[in-house]
């Protein structure tokens, strides 16, 4: 079929993956989205339950969203029980995070229902986690290597918009990671001028949505030039044209998150448009990285 893509061992019926943090904390919402998506990524989870930050944690603005949810999750054990109810209509990618190689890699054993894992090395608004960890390349190597040892399932690394993004991509490739996911949200903030206060309780958060699409595209482009492992592009995709841009830049698949603000059925709509597009221009798989070719 024209929308089929594969990312290593993972075969997807289309290149549209639900991004982590969007409608992914319970099976009930994942089960609706899984009907149309190529795959779904869950909300990021750690061993212990985490409260996350106090509200306000998410706002919408003219060109996307701004969030500092603060990595809120139920315990890995509870989340695993919750995910037992997943309907398996598409592959399930469980997003995992933690402070150490041991913490993160040990999570894989708790999710037998996962078809793959995505390691969160890129959340920009929690101290000591996510993007902070990505600053320590030795630690990143440990985390990726340990996780690959502990599971046979595909492991992806979600990396941040940062000046070391290429180095991180190369480390992932060295550690035989099955693909990199680029990018996460980019640091930003808003201020309410009447109350004269930052809008988010954490003061700053991660910007997502159409505002960050050009930056995300640049990252995918650069990674495609430098590494051979698959790239999953994410950042501001709201239309089928955006999807094609990312594929041409070098992505084998894409993730969609903020666009759910516009419609719960956004993946279904984009999928239908892509089907029409491929009827004229040929299968998606043949377009991967085509913008790089002479």
């Amino acid at each position: 079929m024209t929308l089929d893509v594969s990312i290593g061992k993972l075969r997807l019926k289309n290149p549209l993956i639900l991004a982590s943090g969007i409608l992914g904390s319970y099976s009930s919402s994942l089960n609706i989205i899984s009907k149309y998506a190529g795959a779904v990524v869950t909300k990021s989870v750690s061993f212990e339950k985490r409260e996350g930050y106090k509200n306000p944690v998410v706002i919408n603005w003219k060109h996307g969203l701004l969030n500092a949810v603060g990595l809120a999750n139920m315990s890995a054990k509870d989340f695993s029980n919750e995910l037992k109810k997943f309907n398996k209509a598409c592959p399930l990618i469980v997003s995992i995070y933690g402070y150490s190689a041991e913490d993160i890699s040990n999570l894989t054993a708790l999710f037998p229902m996962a078809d793959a894992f995505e390691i969160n090395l890129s959340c920009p608004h929690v101290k000591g986690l996510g993007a902070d960890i990505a600053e320590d390349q030795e630690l990143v190597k440990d985390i990726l290597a340990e996780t690959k040892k502990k599971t046979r399932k595909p492991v992806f690394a979600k990396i941040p918009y940062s000046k070391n993004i290429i180095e991180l991509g190369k480390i992932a490739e060295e550690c035989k990671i099955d693909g990199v996911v680029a990018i996460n949200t980019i640091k930003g903030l808003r201020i309410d001028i009447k109350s004269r206060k930052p809008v988010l309780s954490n003061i700053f958060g991660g910007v997502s949505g159409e505002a960050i699409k050009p930056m995300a595209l640049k990252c995918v482009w650069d990674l495609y030039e430098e590494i051979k492992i698959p790239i999953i592009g994410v950042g501001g995709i709201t239309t089928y044209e955006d999807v094609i841009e990312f594929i041409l830049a070098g992505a084998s698949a894409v993730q969609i998150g903020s666009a759910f603000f516009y419609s719960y059925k956004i993946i279904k709509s984009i999928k239908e448009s892509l089907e029409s597009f491929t009827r004229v221009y040929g299968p998606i798989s043949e377009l991967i990285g085509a913008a790089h070719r002479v």
Partner: protein
Amino acid sequence: MYSLRVVKVLKHNPSISTIYFSNEIPSYPGQFIMLNVFNYEEIPLSLSSQNSVTVKVRGETTKVLANIPTGSLVGVRGPFGRGFTLTSKHSLIVAGGIGIAPLLYLYICLKKINSNVLVLYGAKTREDIIFKNILKNDVIVATEDGSEGFQGTVVDLLLEINNIEKFDKIYCCGPEGMLKRVYKVLRDKNLLKKSEFSLERYIKCGIGICGTCVLKNGKRVCKDGPVFNASELAEEFED
């Protein structure tokens, strides 16, 4: 997000207050706002009118809000969510405790379009029964301790009403246990399709994307609700 000033705080009793804002919020009954009590937390509150919310003290933020000085600024996001469907014919409102809040806004709107409204309103004790001056003769009160009106819960009272099939719309809001019981009464009488429930869940983003408030059927309370047609709620209330 924008800011509004508090112009009046009506303390109904030590634990329930209605906070009035400087401006009307263009909205529909059943919708809610995310209200930011600066230096505390942003919480979801159903609008009890175009320019008010009615809050019951449950924790730190609600305690501060229930006693907030007039002139204070509060942050507002919204209004959010799907509201009630109005009718100009016969309507039945079933309110449990603080569930009266969104139902008061609904009541005001129904009266404006000349609907024939009957309100069944139950609470633990007479102190918790508020807005009597607005509901006037349209309300039948129930108190669990019998300190006012019918003795029993509002569900007990509902079972005493004859021919609830004659109502064109039935609206309900209150604690989860009460909603479940009312659901079963309506189901047994085949009245789910003409009934609407306003649900409450823990809310983070309020705009339908974080997934914190999803029901067992995957619908989002903040965006697909908080008002739902009762026929959509089988997964939630059936055992």
